[in-house]
């Protein structure tokens, strides 16, 4: 089997699900003939036609709302945000309408909202965001953010089949940099299950998306330079969080670093820390530490962006501190 990129893996999932279930359809800005700003949906319109791959006006409220309405009627819409940053425009309809539909009105609302997310690409403050915190906070939504090509495909298929709304964040830095060989057959990765990206015994790093790769780099370096055994947990799903996986790694290493690319204050590292405090207080040999972005709108210049976002040396430094505690 040939390797394909993270981006191609997502496209493959879309193709397979649209072929499997005629209720699946895509909508978004420029996703049709153009194939989307990042070409994720390239070829979909040619294969499935204009009525199942819909180019929309620039209307994030309109698109998300329309997806919800179609979902109520048994369709399975997959919405593209041209950049995930623009999901902010749909915050009301996602958190107030979509997230509550099942609870308040017993209305199924199976839909996916997906889009290129994250930084490290010189995208500036409005093309680099990681908006997961505001949605992990919303009961009724699920949130997924894969770090590997295999998971990107398998989680996308799970998201499309899920009975509720799944926000699917795709890391644009990984789109073409990360590759994998897809497992044969109907490859579905369950939502809500974390993955041990690297086994280790001394310190745990709990993370997701692009920073999984920073954690793995740091782990390599620390193995080589310090002889430290670092475990890396890739959360994959942010809502619901996989409490069991978190508890398991804390009990194993007793030292935890939570790492994310999002800004620090109010980012989901806080939630994870609170859960660890509640569930594993006596298992901790050191404080739970966080490596995150600075609390700053992400600047554009490489020198500034690199300073604001977490980097591999930051992870190394933090793990050393934890190990020495």
């Amino acid at each position, binding site marked *: 089997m040939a390797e394909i990129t993270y981006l191609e893996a997502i496209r493959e999932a879309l193709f397979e699900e649209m072929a499997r279930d005629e209720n699946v359809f895509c909508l978004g800005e420029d996703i049709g003939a153009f194939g989307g700003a990042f070409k994720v949906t390239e070829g979909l319109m040619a294969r499935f036609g204009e009525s199942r791959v819909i180019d929309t006006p620039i209307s994030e409220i309109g698109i998300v*709302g329309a997806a919800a309405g*179609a*979902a109520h009627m048994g369709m399975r819409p997959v919405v593209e945000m041209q950049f995930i940053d623009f999901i902010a425009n749909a915050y009301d309809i996602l958190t*107030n309408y979509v997230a509550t539909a099942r609870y308040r*009105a017993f209305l199924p609302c199976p839909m996916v909202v997906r889009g290129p997310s994250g930084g490290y690409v010189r995208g500036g403050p409005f093309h680099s965001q990681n908006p997961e915190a505001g949605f992990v906070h919303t009961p009724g939504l699920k949130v997924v953010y894969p770090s590997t090509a295999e998971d990107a495909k398998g989680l996308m298929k799970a998201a499309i089949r899920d009975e509720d709304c799944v926000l699917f964040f795709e890391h644009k830095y990984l789109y073409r940099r990360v590759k994998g060989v897809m497992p044969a057959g109907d490859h579905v990765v369950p939502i809500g299950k974390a993955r041990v990206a690297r086994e280790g015994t001394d310190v745990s790093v709990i993370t997701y998306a692009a920073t999984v790769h920073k954690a793995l780099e740091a782990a390599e370096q620390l193995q080589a330079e310090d002889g430290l055994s670092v475990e890396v947990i890739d959360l994959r799903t942010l809502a619901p969080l996989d409490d069991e996986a978190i508890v398991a790694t804390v009990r194993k290493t007793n030292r935890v670093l939570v790492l994310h690319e999002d800004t620090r204050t109010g980012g989901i590292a806080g939630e994870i820390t609170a859960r660890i405090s509640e569930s594993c207080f006596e298992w901790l040999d050191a404080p739970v530490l966080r490596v995150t972005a600075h609390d700053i709108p992400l600047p554009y210049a490489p020198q500034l962006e690199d300073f604001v976002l977490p980097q591999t040396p930051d992870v190394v430094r933090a793990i050393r501190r934890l190990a020495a505690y």
Partner: protein
Amino acid sequence: MATRTARKGGEPAARPSDRLTREQKLELYYWMRLTRTLEERLVALYRQTKVVGGLFRSLGQEADAVGSCFALERRDVMSPLIRNLGAMLVKGATPVEVLKQYMAKGDSPTRGRELNIHFGDVGAAGATRGFLGQISPLGDMVPVMTGVTLSFRMRGEDRVGLVYVGDGATSTGAFHEGINFAAVQRCPLVVVVENNGYAYSTPTHKQTLAKQFVDKAVGYGIPGYQADGNDVLAVYDVTRTAVDAARAGGGTQLVELMTYRRKGHAEHDNQSYVPDGEIERWAAENDPIDRYVARLTGELGFAAAELAAVDERVRREVDAATDEAEASGFPEPLDALLGVYADPPAERPLWFREGTGGAVAASERAADGWGVYRADPKAGGDA
């Protein structure tokens, strides 16, 4: 795209209402009367503090809600707003459902989760009555109905959608994005703007500089219609024309109904902002039920006794519904935990919550500490 103003233009050659049967004409009266009587009952219950939250009236607007929804088939889907009780009744919502909702009963349509007429019944044609549970943020139902009707178009179903918005709600981004997207997609959607002169305390001239809401149609490239919202047959005619056009593949349609909100935004609102005499004038000269009664008993040849019989039937039905609603119980707290997601089907009660019995006890014994209870919320009695 021409703006067809039913009110201003000459009478159309054949009005859809000409095809209504005698029974249907009486039915229109029944729905308007039921709306008004049910709301009056709600006022009484509100004064007895049996209504938990606010109470919203559609007094003086019954014709606009009833006449417009009457233009739909059962298979069609309608999305009401707070002042569309009449439309919901026409679409099959029952008085007892409405009463239980307002009283937050455990067997109300939303099991006490949502307030007043925020409930729905929607799904495959035939299987449901076809009305959607609204949310409070105004305008949001427009894009949702765009999606509902997009699904009709995609599946080739012979169904139409109708969504109500107030004069105030037209100012929202959601209205704009939803109607524009529906128009481009040629969704079979009728957008009804109920221009009742006010949005809460805000008069229409502070809401928009447009002379009339129907003028917005041209900016979306869709047909626009306007009618006297207090003339139930005119409302039916204009909406039916728009519904037929949408059903025939004519895409999205905008209908403006001119009416007047005689009560405050909600029952607590004293309407201090309304010019003197305005309400009284509308009540005296332009009550939609009075007007229809005059027409029924005049031009249309109904006997007063026929209408009295309807009134009596309505009274009986509302009485019976009230008894039933009053008798039913309040929700069980643990029911709050069910159904945020399809999977998991239930949230767990939090560990600090007393009174969840076995769930809490089991968690206290559990080795894994201080977090969320893992036990089945249904298990066990009170602690």
